[in-house]
């Protein structure tokens, strides 16, 4: 199974994008309520407090400035657990809102 970010269930880490501005972010886990996430890092970083088991998504409500390019998804700071990006990093096309980051907890 593929995802943008794969890690150990329960890991605490941040996801980053290198373009666009995040105004709100949510963790979407199947059959569970949507959880609001903390935004930091100059509005380009969100904290996932505990990586859910299985497939989940981070929804980023984005604003794009003129001249912004596509955003590449990456892992920022890993506070606990193990987390890595897929060999081919995920991207979000400029102008798209919301943007989604797919997570996989194992």
């Amino acid at each position: 199974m593929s995802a943008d970010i794969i890690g150990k269930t329960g890991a605490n880490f941040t996801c980053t994008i290198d373009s666009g501005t995040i105004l709100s972010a949510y963790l979407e886990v199947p059959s569970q309520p949507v959880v609001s996430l903390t935004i930091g890092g100059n509005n380009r970083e969100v904290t996932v407090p505990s990586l859910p088991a299985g497939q989940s998504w981070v929804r980023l409500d984005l604003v794009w400035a003129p001249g912004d390019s596509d955003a590449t998804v990456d892992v920022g700071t890993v506070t606990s657990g193990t987390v890595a990006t897929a060999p081919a990093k995920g991207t979000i096309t400029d102008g798209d809102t919301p943007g989604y980051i797919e997570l996989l907890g194992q």
Partner: protein
Amino acid sequence: MKKSIRILLLCILWNIPYSLAQAPAEAPPRCPAIESTTTLTKAEMAFCEKDSSPEVMAFCENLANLLRYAKKNPGVNTQCFRGLEDNLDLTGRKGVDHFITATALTFATKAAISNALQTADQQRPDQELGANSNASGTASLVSKAGSTELLSFALDTGVVTQSVNGTTSTLSTNADQIFRLITKSDPDCIVNCKSLGWFEDNVLNRITLSGSLSLSQHSSSTTPTSGQASGTTPTQVSEVSVPTGVGKLSGITARYEVLNKFDPRSGAFKTAWAKKVPGLATQVKTIGTDTDAVSKALSAHEPFESDTMTADQKAKRDNLVPQMLGSLGQAAVEDPSGQKLVTAFESFWNQFVTSDVKNDSALAAAVSKVMQDRGIYRQAWLKVLQGAVGNLFTFEYNYNRPANQPETHDFKLIYAYNFKTMGMVTFNGSASIYGTTPAGAKYGNLHYGQVSTEYDQTLSGNGKSVQTQLSLAGYWQYQPHPSVLNIAAGTVAPGTDIPVPNGTQEFVGTAGSLWVTQAKLTIKGSGGINVPIGVSWSNKTDLLQGSKVGAQVGLSYNFSSLAGLFTGGSSQ
């Protein structure tokens, strides 16, 4: 026995390579980085940008990114395409944004965008849709800085500076929107519309053109006669005027919106942008929530992503979707022209976007809601952009053909400052010059110079379907010579039967200052309809002495989007 041992050995040898292949865990491939910082060129998107299928157009950027990666990294591991292929997965969350764009037309939601844009336009106090202040039929004393976004039609009656009262119809259009409509180049894009180049950004996008037709001026042609048909008058008439039209082109206007120069990469712009962007939080959150609702509506259709899939359904999806996505990467590798990729994507689309999906009314409603959100967001985004780059200046050129007067060229600068809840102030400064001055004319090229100002404030109904806006305006014009009146050929001098020679002009009225004040109430209805009703007072008019109190009334219709143009903006 020997035979049994030989068979056993053969089985062991047969299985060795298979076991060796399975034993070590496969190391993840090293994938070259995706070139996300370089914007796709027009050439790179040529294979899909103008495709006849809305789905190919909607996903074109993602298709082009995949093709670019395949071309730049020949022989790369197929796993490296995953991130780019996922953006083309119309069955998952990552493809839902573009799925909405692609199906908007199918679900007839363009009208919904049009309605949303018209609602947003209704709030704008800065748009000029009618004729200029020097037209014989106008309701505007001061020109506004903003223009129509696509197409508008205005009908005005009543004058403010001219003596000749009339009715003028004005058709205005934005050059870029018409260009996008004709070239089918993403005409209803939301933000960061793909630019077609410098000329579009700096010329077409900023130009609004309008033509005014005076409905009370009949045009005519002169033709020789061949003798009297009846009557006993001894004077022979050698030529007569034949009516050829009931309306006459009274002016052509070109407006150029001069944005303050900015560089999106400059620190100054970034700081200004960062300050303004939080104002969009509500709009983007609404789009996000409503986009999730589309995903939820899609989850009712197999194999779209769903929280409630059974194990069998999930296994089926996990087998089918990666296979389809893999075929896209394969097509990109096999054909650098992109044609195979388009064909593979079409096949992917047709397999999953079935008639069940297209006929799902809940999905249609969800897509429609997102499209409305996007329309409103687009307006807000443009407003934020405008705020970040500074206030708007507009330059206006008007070729004017008043009745029985020399043609003029008017040049106007318009500046607007919006105090938001405190209203908006607009300033105009202009000069008017005569187009041609006949031999022996006792006046120069300068017709007049003028300055004017207007204050606009929404009085009532903010956010409601019917709003009212109050405008108070003041106008001062200085003219070095009295106005010039053309005496038409064939005119006979009063009390005589002596015809006046062709091309004769007379000074009429007085030179000096012309003052006009106006109070106007504009009723702004939903659907882009505006009705301005004004009362003005002037110390004189261009041709006549003495103060004049006049009334002006108009009606305008503003088409905010292409959908509005073809549907009237009211149908869903």
